[in-house]
């Protein structure tokens, strides 16, 4: 039971990071989460790709100098993907 609590606690920690808009840290902690609790390496790889996509998004946004709607919608898509990975890790553990 202790381990289940730990998994749940760690997931909630990441969810709160998302809610606080700290996406970069949320992705980092998701990688740790996957490394700790996921035996399937595909999810970790997918999170790494997500990190790359997010970096690209940030640099594009930095160039366009402002947070437009397209940035927000793309970022939200990435965040949903991230959250789905967390659910998947928790459910398959």
């Amino acid at each position, binding site marked *: 039971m202790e381990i289940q609590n730990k998994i749940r606690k760690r997931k909630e920690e990441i*969810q709160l990071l*998302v809610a606080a808009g700290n996406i970069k840290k949320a992705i980092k902690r998701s990688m740790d989460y996957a*490394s*700790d609790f996921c035996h399937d*390496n595909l999810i970790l790889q997918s999170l790494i790709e997500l990190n790359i996509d997010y*970096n690209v998004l940030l640099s594009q946004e930095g160039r366009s100098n402002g947070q437009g709607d397209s940035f*927000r919608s793309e970022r939200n898509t990435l965040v949903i993907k991230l959250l789905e990975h967390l659910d998947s890790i928790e459910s398959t553990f």
Partner: protein
Amino acid sequence: MKFLADEIKTALRNDPINAAGHLVEFAMEHALDNKLVHQALILKMNLSENAGNGGQEPIVNDMISLVDKISAAAIQNDQTANAGASLPVRKKRHLPVRQNDIVCKGTGLNKAFKRNGFALRDIDVSFRLGEITGVVGENGNGKTTLFRLIIGDLALDAGTIDYPYIREKAGIFPEDWTNIKKHIAFIPQDLDRWFGSVRNNLHYELSVHSVYGQKNDDEVDYIIHRLGLEEHQDKTWGQLSGGYKLRFALARALVWKPKLLVIDEPLANLDIKAQLVILNDLRDLANGYRYPLSIVISSQHLHEIESVSDNIIFLRNGNMVFNGRVDDLGNEREENTYEFGCGLTQEELEKKLKGLSYYGIENTGLAFVIRTPLSVTHDQLLKKLLEENVNIEYFRNISQSTKKLFV
């Protein structure tokens, strides 16, 4: 349930920024579908971004309808559960929990240097898995010597040092240094120059630790992205800034999952933001579930190091002045100590503090340190200073900090 939902909706209409946090909690607690939780998290994130720019209304409306959805589904589920339906039971697997194992234990460690007369005397240390131990003390007080003893770089004059967890896990005998050192990583203060690219060095580090093939590629990818080195992975030594050199040194030390990581003065050349990022990363990685490690770190940045450490060791002239939990620092103190900066002279300050009970004020050149009876709390001191219209530049309660041992 309905009552709670109505309360949140009202709060959202009145004070959306604060109520958004309640919505997230509500969703995490009651939403049956994870997608609803995701929506709540994203709405809260978007709302915070739009705070103050007038674009909040549609987001608040979405939040209110989300509350309705969550509560409706939960009410329906309660009814179904009462009708006898049972939820599927998921099979759980358990990983062995290995927290708090002793990675390194040194008893009565002694080391003397004939050339300069310095000696480290009777040091007892114990480093546990998943914990961070901060080693503090002024320059030349034995921190690096202690580190070199721990990592097996220097031989002891007296005392014993053992690595129970490492020996047990790897099945090796005491003093089999070749194998013991395979589980210890050390990052010196002056980082050695290296050759080749960041990525290749990490691959090499892993393969010499017998992690081959796809696993090697995956672990390198993970550590590069985890420590924010993705844009620097093809760079060489000369192309990296000081902060990234340290980050690389960390990556190289962490990529092969050592059991003990010893870092000598990592924060020395970093800006405050980089310091926080690195300390937070260390904290997270030490607590890792599958690969926890014990971290021993020295620094002159007392506040930062205390905020991240579980234990603190304070050395003075080669002797151990304090060794214990950070929370226990100053537990047995007989006075409170506060540090603050203001534009007054000591005389002016003493005049302003008339009527407040204190033992003494010391001007360190950069700030004042005041020692008071335990009955004088920081609230009282601050209140007094504000009443006297003292322009306070900064204020810190160092009663339970190693900083007190320095002043």
